[in-house]
């Protein structure tokens, strides 16, 4: 390495960190680590907001992995999952792309509210509602062989509740 301190990169409009992982449950923690490190690059996002992004990343990657590993129509369990964080001005766009065969988010049937005793019959179904709450914008796009979840985050931490 040179002895001189390195000039920092000319501040472009956007910086991208991308992580490509196999569809294995034990790499979701790696995804969270990378998201935490990416968020730390923007001082507008504090520790609490960083936790929101790590949680959203965890949920989206978990869904992507589950879709690819499930024996579902069109799934491809050999393909990688791509997590991408694009850092703009006080705005982070996080995308998770899978090859899980795709799904229709509008066709999802909502479970009863959590305070309804019948809700206890379902261990699942909290992932997408959490992502929706944590992000400022959420979009599910069809992409070749699967889905790309596009989540946009501003620096303000979540305060609302599901439902």
């Amino acid at each position: 390495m040179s002895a001189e301190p390195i000039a920092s990169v000319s501040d472009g409009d956007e910086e991208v960190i991308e992580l490509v992982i196999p569809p294995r449950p034990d790499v979701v923690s790696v995804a969270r680590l990378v998201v935490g490190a990416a968020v730390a690059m923007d001082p507008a996002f504090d520790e609490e907001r960083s936790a929101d992004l790590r949680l959203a990343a965890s949920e989206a990657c978990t869904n992507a992995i589950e879709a690819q590993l499930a024996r579902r129509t069109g799934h491809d369990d050999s393909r990688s999952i791509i997590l991408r964080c694009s850092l703009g001005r006080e705005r982070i766009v996080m995308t998770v792309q899978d090859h899980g065969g795709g799904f229709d988010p509008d066709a999802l049937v909502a479970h009863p509210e959590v305070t309804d005793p019948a809700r206890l019959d379902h261990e699942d179904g909290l992932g997408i509602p959490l992502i929706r709450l944590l992000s400022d914008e959420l979009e599910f796009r069809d992409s070749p062989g699967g889905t790309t979840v596009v989540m946009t985050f501003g620096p303000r931490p979540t305060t609302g509740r599901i439902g």
Partner: protein
Amino acid sequence: MDFRLEVSERDAWSIVAVSGEIDVATSPRFRERLIELISTGNHRIVVDLRWVDFIDSTGLGVLIGALKRLRSHEGELRLVIDDPRVLKIFDITGLDQVFEIDSVLDTAAP
């Protein structure tokens, strides 16, 4: 990944102390252990989450499943949480109204 689970007894309660991260990789072990405890007759369970750094919806699902099983046995489930980051996910999902949550072990397992 960092995940550990220790079970101890305290009067009528089984205390399940979890540490590390509860996610899709570690929650199968968490679920298995709780089901095993309940099916061997431990119907008053405290899950101590004070050393948990991270929990996502997979971990919440395990706790929901445990609560359902325990209720069907007239049992009880209590959680110990003192980290505001962990508490937040119960808060925003509304699950803080479903689970009995204490911030110290002494009141959870009196």
